[in-house]
C-alpha cells in the first residue's frame, strides 16, 4: 500500500499542497490526492463498496419483509405500530404468589427474574402453551431472595389501560394470563 506522505524537508511538499488546494478550489470535497494520503487499490474499494451495498440491501429486504431474523440488519420495528388513540395499552406484569400472602408485583429485569419484559412478551404464546417456561424466572427470584420462602406460584399478568383521545381513561383492568405452580 503506497504511502504518499511527503518526506520531511522534501521540496515536493509545497507542490502537493498546491495540487490539493487546486482540487479544493475545483469543488471536490475529497481530493483524490492530498498530502499524506493513502489511497485504496481498486480491489479494496470494490469489496468495501459491495459490503456497504450488501448490508443496506439486507436492511431493505429485512424492512420490506418485516423480518427481524436478519439481525443486525433486520426490520427496525421498535415502536412502529401506531396505537389507536381510542384503543388500549397492554402492560405485561409478573406477580409472585406465596401461601397466606397477597400476590405481589415482581419487576422484570436481569437483576430480578433474569429476563426483560420484552423477551417475555415476545414469547407469550410459548409461555401460555407451556407455563413451565416461567420456572427459571421463579428460580432466579428465589435465588435472589434466600431469606424468604420460595414462591408457590408465579403469575404472568397484564394491566390493560383504556385510552380515550390519546390519554388514559378509567381504571386499569387486571388480567391473569398464565400461572406457573411450584412442583
Amino acid at each position, binding site marked *: 500500500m503506497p504511502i504518499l506522505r511527503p518526506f520531511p524537508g522534501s521540496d515536493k511538499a509545497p507542490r502537493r499542497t498546491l495540487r490539493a488546494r487546486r482540487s479544493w478550489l475545483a469543488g471536490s470535497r475529497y481530493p483524490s490526492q492530498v498530502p499524506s494520503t493513502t489511497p485504496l487499490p481498486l480491489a479494496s474499494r470494490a469489496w468495501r463498496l459491495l459490503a456497504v451495498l450488501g448490508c443496506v440491501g439486507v436492511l431493505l429486504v429485512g424492512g420490506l419483509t418485516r423480518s427481524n431474523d436478519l439481525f443486525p440488519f433486520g426490520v427496525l420495528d421498535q415502536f412502529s405500530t401506531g396505537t389507536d388513540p381510542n384503543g388500549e395499552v397492554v402492560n405485561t406484569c409478573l406477580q409472585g404468589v406465596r401461601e397466606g400472602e397477597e400476590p405481589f408485583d415482581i419487576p422484570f429485569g436481569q437483576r430480578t427474574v433474569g429476563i426483560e419484559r420484552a423477551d417475555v412478551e415476545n414469547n407469550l404464546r410459548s409461555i401460555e402453551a407451556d407455563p413451565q417456561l416461567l420456572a427459571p424466572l421463579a428460580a432466579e427470584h428465589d435465588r435472589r431472595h434466600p431469606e424468604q420462602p420460595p414462591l408457590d406460584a408465579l403469575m404472568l399478568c397484564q394491566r390493560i389501560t383504556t385510552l380515550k383521545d*390519546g390519554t388514559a381513561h378509567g381504571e386499569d383492568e387486571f388480567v391473569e394470563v398464565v400461572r406457573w405452580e411450584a412442583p
Partner: protein
Amino acid sequence: MGGAVRGFLFPALPLARIRVLRVIVYAFVMLDVLTFSRDVLSHADNAGFYTPLALARLLHLPPVTAPVAWMLLAVILAGCAAAIAGWRPRLTGAVVAAAFWVWMLYSNSYGYIAHDHMALMVATAVLPTVGGAARPELEGSLEAPARSEAAGWALRAIQIAVVCTYFFSVIPKILYSGSLANWGNSAILTWASIRRGSPLAHLLVEHAPWVFVPAQWAGLALEALSPVVLFLRGRALHLAVVLYLGFHLSTLVLLGIHFLPTVICWAAFLPLEKLRLPQRVGGRSPSLTRRSPTTPRSRPRR
C-alpha cells in the same frame, strides 16, 4: 469506480480520527457488555426462550451456557482493553468484532430484538479494516494529518449505519401502521409513556397529551430526513448532531430509552483527531499534538 462514489464512500480522512474513535468505541463496548447487553449472562438460565436468529443458526450457535458467556465477556473486555492501549488494534479489534457479534446474537436471540446496536456492531466490524492508525508516527501533524481512504470508508460505513438506524425505521412504520400519517397521528407515545414512562411522561399523559402527536411528527421528520446528514459539513453537521442527540435525550428523560450504542457512533461524524488523548491511550504519540515544522499548513477538510 465513479468519482462521485469514490468521493462519497472513500473520502480521504485522518488516520488519527480512527485512533480516537477506536478508544471511544472499544471503551463503550466494555461498558455495553457489562450493562446494556449483560443479559447474555442471565440467558444461560433461559435456554427455553432461545430462538436463534438467522446468523446464529448459520453459525450453529447452541443456547448460551454460563462458561461460554463468561468466556465471551472475558475476550471482549481483554480485546477492548488491548485495542484501547493501542496494542495490535487491528488484530485485537478483529477478535473483539467476532466475539461482540456473537455476544449480540445471544443477547437478541431470546425473544426481544433491539435495534440500537446496529451502528456499534458495524463500527466494531469496520475499525479493524483500517491500517496505519496504530502507528502514530505515520499520522502526520494536527494541521496536516495523514489521511487514508480506508479510514474514510470505515468512518463512512459507521455514519451510514447510524443514518440507516433512523431512516429504515420509517419502512415498518408505514407497513405496520398503514401510512406515516396513521403513525404520526397515533397514540404511540402515550402507549410508551404508560408502559415505561418517567414521572414526567405520566404527567404529560395526564395533563398535556396533545404534545405527543406533534412530537411524533417531529420524530418522523428526523428519521425520514436523516440521510441529509451524510451530506452536511461544518456547522450544519454539528447542529444536526446536536439535534439528534437532543432527540435521544428527550426519549431518555421521558421513556428511559437512551439508545447510547447509536449515540456513541455519532462520534464518527466529528473531527475527533482534535481531541487530545492521554499519551499512551490508543498508542498516541506526543508528536501529533504539535505541528511538524517541516510539513506545510493545509486546510482541515472535515
